[in-house]
């Protein structure tokens, strides 16, 4: 019955899938206090086993810094704001070792390619490549579940449930 049908695009986002494959760790175990103490918000992190970052859900790109390139912001249709931060202290690289595909204000679908990074290069420069997902307005989503402690398959394994 069409009465019960709802367009898929209108459904509020309920799950975030792994934006890179690898070991998922609690945000409190990230080796950078700005994340582990949740100053930026609650979230979850992945020790990357590959180098392409994909959208963890549908949404709109709210930030794609063309200079420093290591962070992407997304606004979801449930109002949540997420930040994907690639590597720790990687702002110091001034974009070296990163390539951004995401464009500000563009609509993206889960699994769309957002960014690519050169893991070896970043590690050789002495930086951790931990990829962190932060829900920056997590105060408004207090019953959000962050799931860690497993090896995630990109675009498949659920790492967060609203």
């Amino acid at each position, binding site marked *: 019955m069409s009465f019960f049908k709802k367009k898929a695009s209108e459904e509020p986002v309920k799950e975030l899938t792994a934006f890179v494959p690898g070991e998922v760790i609690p945000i409190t175990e990230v080796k950078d206090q700005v994340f582990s103490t949740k100053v930026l918000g609650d979230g979850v992190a992945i020790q990357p086993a590959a180098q392409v970052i994909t959208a963890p859900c549908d949404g709109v790109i709210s*930030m794609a810094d063309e200079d420093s390139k290591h*962070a992407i912001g997304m606004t979801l249709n449930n109002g949540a704001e997420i930040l994907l931060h690639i590597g720790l202290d990687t*702002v110091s690289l001034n974009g070296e070792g990163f390539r951004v595909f995401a464009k500000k204000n563009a609509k993206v679908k889960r699994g769309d390619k957002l960014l690519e990074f050169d893991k070896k290069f970043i590690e050789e420069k002495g930086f951790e490549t931990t990829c962190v997902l932060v829900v920056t307005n997590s105060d408004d989503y207090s019953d959000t579940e962050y799931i860690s402690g497993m090896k995630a398959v990109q675009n498949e394994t659920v790492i967060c449930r609203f």
Partner: protein
Amino acid sequence: MKKFEYVIKDELGIHARPAGLLIKEAKKYESKITLSKDGKSVEATKLIAVMGMAIKCGQTVEVEISGNDEDAAFDGMKAFFEANL
């Protein structure tokens, strides 16, 4: 309403770490605090909006504060910028 201008001295500009601390400071106050650069303004309590301004070293930002606790917020924000940025 009170406001001040500040020239960023942190060589990395306002990236995730200082932005996070800035938001934490701004959230302490009831007053509405906005950050402007080149005619673009964002609320100082919104992390991605603040980071999205891509404020670099040497650039001037204007901080505008209005509300009941604007005196305390002005002092707090000014001290924050001077200590961290």
